């Protein structure tokens, strides 16, 4: 066993307790996350799916699943670029207004000149949609914007439209509704994070800038924004990582079909289709690996943006 230390009887080693305390985490992680992840990657190199009652495979096919994923003229498959493009576009549509509005609100709330009253109330209200069940939120929008729903009823009774607008049949309106829902769900969260970032900046810097006679625009671009940058990047990239995982809202709103014509099918919806009846573990594995690579790249940016700041 270990050498006995001569410095006295108080130097009992507690190291084993460290291991004991972290064992549950790692056992569960290994079984329920790590092993499935490895299996996912492994699957991506195999032809392995269900066709009716017969199971095809598993048969090693090398990179064929990836080739199928990216092929532009493979029968029965839409190239993955379309879904990747959809996902990015839907994220941008919601995130762009989200960051503009959140930045604006964060500046309002932290402005000593404006001295906004009722902040707790406003924060409570704008954060609320973040906690709403996304699938129920999407179902709600479907009901409200359906051809017989209250929005169309209102448009017709007020004379704005002469016949019901098919909001869920047009690319523009479906994408706008998804973006609007994502905006509503996330702008409050972003506001609160950016606000905390601004409040973390040394008040004395603002004070001296004010004494120097700087305008609020100068203060924003020369003090607030540069010092807020690490947090801004963190919030921005985590929003991207969240965006790449977009699923519940478009899935329920379009009933899983990404109507019209796959224009709102996201990457995870595509993955989900492979995990349904066909149980196409091979293709689903390849989509997951792609997803993993994208998030890994994005996360490395987050870590780079946080670490230089650490002492």
């Amino acid at each position, binding site marked *: 066993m270990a050498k006995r230390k001569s410095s006295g009887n108080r130097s009992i080693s*507690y190291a084993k307790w*460290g*291991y*004991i*305390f*972290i064992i*549950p*985490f*790692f056992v*569960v*992680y290994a079984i*329920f*996350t790590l*092993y*499935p*992840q490895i299996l*996912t990657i492994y*699957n991506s190199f195999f032809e392995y799916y269900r066709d009716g009652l017969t199971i095809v495979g598993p048969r090693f096919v090398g990179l064929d699943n990836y080739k199928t994923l990216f092929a532009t003229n493979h029968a029965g498959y839409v190239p993955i670029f379309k879904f990747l493009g959809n996902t990015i576009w839907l994220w941008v549509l919601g995130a762009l207004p989200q960051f503009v509005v959140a930045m604006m*609100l964060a500046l309002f709330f932290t402005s000593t000149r*404006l001295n*906004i009253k009722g902040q707790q109330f406003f924060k*409570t*209200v*704008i*954060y*609320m949609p973040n*906690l*709403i*069940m*996304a*699938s129920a939120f999407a179902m*709600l929008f*479907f*009901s409200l914007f*359906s051809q*017989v729903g209250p929005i169309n*009823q*209102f448009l017709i009774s007020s004379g704005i439209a002469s016949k019901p607008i098919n909001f869920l049949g047009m690319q523009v309106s479906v994408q706008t509704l998804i973006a609007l829902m994502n905006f*509503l769900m996330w702008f409050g969260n972003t506001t*609160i994070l950016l*606000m905390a*970032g601004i409040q973390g900046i040394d008040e004395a810097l603002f004070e001296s800038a004010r004494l120097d006679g700087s305008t609020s625009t100068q203060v924003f671009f020369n003090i607030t924004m540069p010092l*807020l940058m*690490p*947090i801004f990047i963190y*919030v921005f990239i985590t929003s991207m990582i969240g965006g*790449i*995982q977009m*699923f*519940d809202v478009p899935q*329920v*709103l379009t*009933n899983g079909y990404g109507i019209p014509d796959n224009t709102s099918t996201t990457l*995870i919806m595509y993955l989900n289709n492979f*995990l349904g009846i066909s*149980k196409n573990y091979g293709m689903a594995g390849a989509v997951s690996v792609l997803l993993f690579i994208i*998030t*890994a790249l994005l*996360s490395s940016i987050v870590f780079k943006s*946080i670490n230089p700041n650490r002492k």
Partner: protein
Amino acid sequence: MKSNANRSAEIKLLISRIVVYAILGFLSFLCLFFFYLMFVNSTRSNAQLQSGFTLIPRENLFNNFYNAWHDGDINIPVGMKNSFIIAMTSAILTSYFSALTAYGTYVYNFRFKKFVHLFILAIMMIPSQVSAVGFIQLAFKYNLTNKLWVLIVPSIAAPSVYFYMRQYLEATLPIDMVEAARIDGSSEFKIFNEIVLPIMRPAMAVQMIFSFVGSWNNYFMPALLLNKPDKKTVPIMIATLRSADYSKFDMGKVYMLMVMAILPVMVIYVILSKSIIKGVTSGSVKG
């Protein structure tokens, strides 16, 4: 002269205040409007709903509630029970074991301490969907579909909750306190359960709330694993509303089902909004 300049500055401030409050008012309206419509529609009968748009609640709230609660296809009481079991046990497990793991890497010195900490941080950003394929495959292989515990146990290993707990410990727990307890002769587990956990109560409460809400709303994995009617959770039931033939529905009941799906989380939020909003920022990076 001077008072003139002062007055124009005051007027400018007044105008910017009015604009800012108008923007805040509009955004608040946008956040509440759709849910208000949902609530109003859940108080109207199907016939009233077909007849047109209104913002005034009607008298059919209890009627709709009765119909939704006793619906033949969508067994919402069972769904709520299943969702509650998963959400509650996950919340307890995730906060307890994350605290335990964080304490393990914070208080004890062992060879891989630093590696373990960095490893957990590195896996934090990997989306759960990446393991979904293998997870589904294993669940079908070992006959683990339609078992609620399969969705509960993974919450023991939650990297982001670990990260939060670890930061909380660094800020609040002096190592001397642990050493003092050791001198008193307490065992390591007793120190954690009886001295450290009470200190971590606020952090555990915040993480329990977020975890509860996250599981309650979770749709992706449960939808792939639970297909027996008596095992389904609320989000799966809500999604089936969307895929059913819409025209046959009593819409008052549909709106009521949505209200019931959202209500538990809303009640929690109304009671605890202050600490929830505080929790949003404390979990993220420190500038």
